[in-house]
């Protein structure tokens, strides 16, 4: 059985806003019945203020799909459409106190249903921009399609390359056989042969000495900057970038920019950065999108 948080169980056993909204004026339907997860989100939006008055969900899916749908409706009620568009899948996962890596796609589905519903309200056509493959790297939640695309786009040749560009395989290493199989397949399609001893095409992420002693805040900020700098090359290879905005205690607030901004994988990337920071710094570091800082201020004011 999955290790679901209490929050997931709470929303699964007692879902909020289940069923279709009567007089809905926005509908988003996303998911894939072959994968066993699909969601219809219905909204009642106030035409003058664009505030979401009511939200309801109907979900065919597992425990975390139903919990993600339920929590999504709770998050967006009372928001304007523009505010709602800023809700990320990480927000959904965070509200649920985390999801297992195999289940992160449930939170992605929630976000996409929201985007689809808002597009529907505005008379736009919503197009899904990513394809999901079999989960390969469980440590960083990277799927086969993502790895294949990166291998194609960046002419990757070794497992190390794949790890440098996608983080896949950078944790427990159990998926290296699967990554080799993907490399073999893609390279064969390109008429090349996979050679495990080939020189990496990319510059490996710079090794930074792990720190042992407790850090002062200034040291911590410097160290975080250093780690982000070392990861920057692989982010820029995707056309993205990351900027450190604030460090409060053990929480680092970052801005994902360029292609990373709004990317489906941004949440995964943040999780990867967090993992790398913890490895180097030897202490718990939480990496949070800078958009979350507003909540922090509210808490302090309250």
């Amino acid at each position, binding site marked *: *059985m999955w290790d679901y948080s209490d929050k997931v*169980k709470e929303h*699964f*056993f007692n*879902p909020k806003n*289940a*069923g279709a909204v009567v007089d809905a004026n926005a509908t988003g*339907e*996303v*998911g*894939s*019945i*072959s*994968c*066993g*997860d*699909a*969601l*219809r989100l219905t909204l009642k939006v106030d035409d003058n203020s664009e505030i979401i008055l009511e939200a309801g*969900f*109907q*979900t*065919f*899916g*597992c*425990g*975390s*799909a*139903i919990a993600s749908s339920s929590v999504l409706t709770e998050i967006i009620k009372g928001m304007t459409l523009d505010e709602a568009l800023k809700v990320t899948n990480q927000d959904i996962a965070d509200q649920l106190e985390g999801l297992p890596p*195999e*289940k992160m796609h449930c939170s*992605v*589905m929630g976000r*996409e249903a929201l985007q*689809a519903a808002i597009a529907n309200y505005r008379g736009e056509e*919503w*197009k*899904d921009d*990513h394809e*999901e*493959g*079999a*989960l390969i790297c469980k440590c960083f939640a990277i799927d086969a399609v993502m790895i294949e695309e990166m291998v194609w786009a960046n002419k990757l040749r070794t497992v190390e390359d794949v790890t440098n560009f996608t983080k896949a395989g950078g944790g427990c290493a159990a998926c290296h056989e699967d990554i080799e199989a993907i490399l073999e397949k893609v390279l064969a399609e390109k008429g090349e042969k996979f050679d495990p001893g080939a020189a990496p095409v990319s510059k490996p992420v710079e090794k930074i000495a792990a720190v042992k002693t407790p850090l002062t805040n200034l040291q911590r900020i410097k160290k975080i900057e250093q780690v982000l700098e070392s990861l920057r090359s692989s982010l820029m290879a995707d056309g993205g970038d990351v900027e450190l905005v604030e460090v409060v205690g053990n929480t680092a607030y970052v801005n994902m920019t360029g292609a990373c901004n709004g990317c489906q994988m941004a949440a995964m990337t943040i999780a990867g950065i967090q993992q790398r920071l913890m490895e180097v710094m030897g202490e718990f570091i939480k990496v949070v999108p800078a958009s979350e800082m507003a909540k922090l201020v509210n808490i302090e004011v309250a």
Partner: protein
Amino acid sequence: MADIYLDNNATTKVDPAVVDVMIPYFLEQYGNPSSIHKFADGVARGLKQARQQVQALIGCEHDSEIIFTSCGTESNSTAILSAIKAQPDKKEIITTVVEHPAILNLCSYLEKEGYTIHRLPVDRAGRLKLDAYQRLLSDQVAIVSVMWANNETGTIFPVAEMAEMANAAGVMFHTDAVQAVGKIPMMLQDTKIDMLSLSGHKLHAPKGIGVLYLRRGTRYRPLLRGGHQERGRRAGTENSASIVGLGKACELALEFIEYENTKVKAMRDRLEQGITEQIPHCFVTGDMYNRLPNTTDIAFEYIEGESILMLLNKAGIAASSGSACTSGSLEPSHVMRAMDIPYTAAHGTIRFSFSRYNTMAEVDKVVEAMPGIVATLRKLSPYWSGDGPVANPEQAFAPTYS
């Protein structure tokens, strides 16, 4: 009432009588069976007895045809790899699309190594077509590996007949019988089955012990080479406590085989009838007329299996599902797909599998709990409206792929 365990095809409770016979092999007779001293002098006898107890259950001619392994998977791998190593010129393997991953993933791996794998398809009731099988048998085939009974639906394959056909064509025949042994009677000496895998934990013995039956005279190459254990056919110090436990479990299984096919079957039938009569839009998968007595697999349309399991678990009932989500894969069970069960039903399949420890009172409790669980989830489903599915469900809800 205590929690209800209906997941016996996944694994079983170890019978207390099995635990009892094992304990002395941890605390007293813990010597290495190969040693010459009093800590080991009873072990060889214990192993010999266990071998005979297994022999009696599967009805083979000699007790030396029993090779103890660590699990069903090891037995399966040993059988197939032995056949291809012993016959290096034969480059084809025949199996079925509905085998356990222990066979399917090994075959896919061998396919990459250059072997041709023939995967026999099944019809909507999970049955094989033997004429297609007959056409594939040739001197190019190293081994046929066909499960005796399917773990999800309980559907029984005609392995005795298929082994005759293979034998007539001069082809080795292996069967993965981990679900069948102990649930249906068998007499291997009257068949042409060359190799058979069984697993202790499916029949109230502990996990980590299995058997490969190897018909005397079958050409064989060990998977593990090393010491002389198991007559050099499976090296590694014997797991003596578990072997003795498996022996006891086999003795008990033989004792209860009639109970399994009468009382256990009656519980399964009552559950199946109770559920399918009360709940609309659900159906039994597999070959209803040729199944293991303890298994029923029911597809609940328009809802998803993991959600059903979570609500069942909350009600104190343990079962399993063929949905994608329960395994973390992107597709529902390959067995359901092979039978062409639509996605809206395949994701909602629940397998209830019984053992002699279950009771009719438990059956009644599950029959009472299921309608509410299914109704709760259907209320959330985009395919459901009021008392039934929406009209033209596939058109009424057609989500954008994400």
